[in-house]
């Protein structure tokens, strides 16, 4: 039993009691004996969706074995605690890659499924849930079910993006994608504003498997400028594996003056200039720095100091670009804009996940250092705009979403509720599933 499990946003929370089984065979007893619990992975979610106050979480990081890997077909089945970087170590030399990867390789496969993570290829490949062939799900009544698109379909759909609430995923079977090298051909294009971003992004959609943009949200007057980065797997190069070991680590929480609006603006300006220089021609980059730049800096979350930070990630429908501009202005004017706001156009490939976040639209993710009420007010204002635009915010990044917002972003939640394991809960869930607060609006009818 230990108590040092933390969520990635580093906002102080009470010590989280943590159980760490070493074998899948121990799970059934362990789980059934809890009054309340939650499976968690490597704590790379920023908010409180991986926390459960007053009860132990069951951390799966020691359940990290590969069950089966077919080098001919690229089908791999793993225990839930296998980290993405460890999986890549095994599959890349054999010419395979993750079908979808988030921006950190330190997430576990189980955690990635439970958030139905998306990557820079959402417009071409959908979210991770689209590539899951089967899931083994353990419920607190000790039942173990293998769920697929056709067997226990409802449970399969509820578990993908199910925030750990349907039970413990004990195995995940994935279809990998073939690669010839572990390198990417990458193109950089700067844009002066959101409109130009939208144009470039649409243009790149068909020719590039991966697209993502970095955008300046901090500099008044220049907000909305940024760099669109488009890439494809390269035919040139070898199949070397990257190392997820940090090259440099932030040794301790930084004092609060490290990040202020001036240093952040300076950073954004510098970053923009550096990226602008890359505009000439195509660059050849290894998957490790391309997909996982932040993994090279251990504990980068400490730059926000001991109060921690929030990440806010939301999307609005494609036709709601004006709302995006509005939101951008709100953030810039608040003076709380962060470095590295990440912008991405999502496609229309639907995930089996019942409660999944990704849907067609423009998606923006940014960090805000924790400043108490001020931050809460800003995020609540952003939520109001996103609700109005018919968008949604991402639970994996959240600590402040209100029950109202959640229930409007995810009207399917009432159907989802039926699949929740009676033992499972999270701090996030306790907040957003609260029905008593939903007074000022009538709930939309359940679409499912």
């Amino acid at each position: 039993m230990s108590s040092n499990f933390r969520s990635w946003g580093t906002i102080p929370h009470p010590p989280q009691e943590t159980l760490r089984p070493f074998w899948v065979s121990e799970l059934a007893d362990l789980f059934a004996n809890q009054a309340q619990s939650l499976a968690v992975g490597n704590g790379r979610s920023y908010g409180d969706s991986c926390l459960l106050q007053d009860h132990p979480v069951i951390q799966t990081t020691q359940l990290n074995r590969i069950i089966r890997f077919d080098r001919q077909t690229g089908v791999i089945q793993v225990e839930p605690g296998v980290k993405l970087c460890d999986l890549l170590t095994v599959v890349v030399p054999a010419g395979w890659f993750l079908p979808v990867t988030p921006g950190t390789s330190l997430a576990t496969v189980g955690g990635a499924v439970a958030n139905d993570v998306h990557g820079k290829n959402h417009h071409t490949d959908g979210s991770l849930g689209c590539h899951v062939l089967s899931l083994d799900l353990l419920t607190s009544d000790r039942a173990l079910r293998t769920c697929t698109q056709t067997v226990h379909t409802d449970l399969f759909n509820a578990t993908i993006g199910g925030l750990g609430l349907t039970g413990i995923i004990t195995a995940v079977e994935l279809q990998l994608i073939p690669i010839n090298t572990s390198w990417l051909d990458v193109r950089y294009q700067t844009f002066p504003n959101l409109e130009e971003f939208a144009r470039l992004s649409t243009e790149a959609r068909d020719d590039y498997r991966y697209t993502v943009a970095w955008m300046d949200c901090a500099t008044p007057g220049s907000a909305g400028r940024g760099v669109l980065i488009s890439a494809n797997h390269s035919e040139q190069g070898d199949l070397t594996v990257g190392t997820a070991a940090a090259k440099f680590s932030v040794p301790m929480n930084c004092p609060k003056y490290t990040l202020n609006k001036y240093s952040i603006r300076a950073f954004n300006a510098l970053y923009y200039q550096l990226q602008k220089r890359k505009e000439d021609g195509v660059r050849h980059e290894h998957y490790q720095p391309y997909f996982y730049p932040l993994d090279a800096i251990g504990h980068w979350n400490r730059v926000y100091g001991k109060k921690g930070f929030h990440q806010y990630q939301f999307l609005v429908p494609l036709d709601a670009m004006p709302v995006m501009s509005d939101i951008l202005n709100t953030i810039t004017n608040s003076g709380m804009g962060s470095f590295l706001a990440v912008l991405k156009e999502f496609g229309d490939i639907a995930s089996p996940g019942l409660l999944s976040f990704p849907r067609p639209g423009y998606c923006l993710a940014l960090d805000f250092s924790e400043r108490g009420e001020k931050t809460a007010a800003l995020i609540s204002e952003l939520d109001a705009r996103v609700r109005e635009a018919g968008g949604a915010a991402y639970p994996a990044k959240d600590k402040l979403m209100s029950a109202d917002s959640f229930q409007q972003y995810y009207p399917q939640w009432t159907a989802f509720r039926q699949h929740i394991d009676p033992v499972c809960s999270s701090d996030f869930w306790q907040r957003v599933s609260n029905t008593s607060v939903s007074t000022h609006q009538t709930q939309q009818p359940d679409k499912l």
Partner: protein
Amino acid sequence: MTMKQSIAIIGATSTVAISVARKLAAEDVDIYLVGRNEDKLATVAADLAARGSSTHTIVTDLANLDEHAKVLQQIESATHCFIFHSALTDQAAAESDWSMAEASLTINLLSPLSLLHGLANRLEQQKTGSLVVVSSVAGDRGRASNYWYGTAKGALSIHCQGLRNRLAKSGVPVLTVKPGFIDTAMTAHLEKKPAVLWASAEEVADLIVKGWKQQKNVIYTPGFWRFIMWIITRIPETIFKRLSL
């Protein structure tokens, strides 16, 4: 032409053993996994197979010395042998109940010695291969709180020392590994305090593989334990008695 390496991992379901086996598996080797729990062994074997090595599992209770002759036969073609098995001793129980003390000596001392006995003779003849034995810092000095475990590990370390000197003539290196606190299934129930003294199995496995490749004699994992134990073994007994360690 390089021959395929053949490695035996004894006590293969220990958390550190699994990590070591994975690091070796990447290099395309034949691996013999010896342990008690059939399901766990199968899990480990499947993982190593997915990483490209061929595996063989041998199910046996290593505390049962009568089975050792058979085990030694089954791992006959392994040239590099890693001995990991170990069981924490309940000191209080061992003090009050001889059978508990005896059980601790059997699994932590007699069992590795019995295997080393056979392995040493074979490797000495073959003039090739290596031995890696996981002992413990607990064997460096007797302490009131865990001297039954310490007795077994201390004797094991001494034995390896002798064996190393004997086998040096045949070109067979013997590595003694002395880990401090490791976060493993065996120590899952313990408070991990102070945190700086606890190492992950992964970290310890890295050091073991490195020490093995460099043909070291004795390694402490992590290395700072060498320093801690240097101090601990130098505290005069009159003072040590009052420290209740």
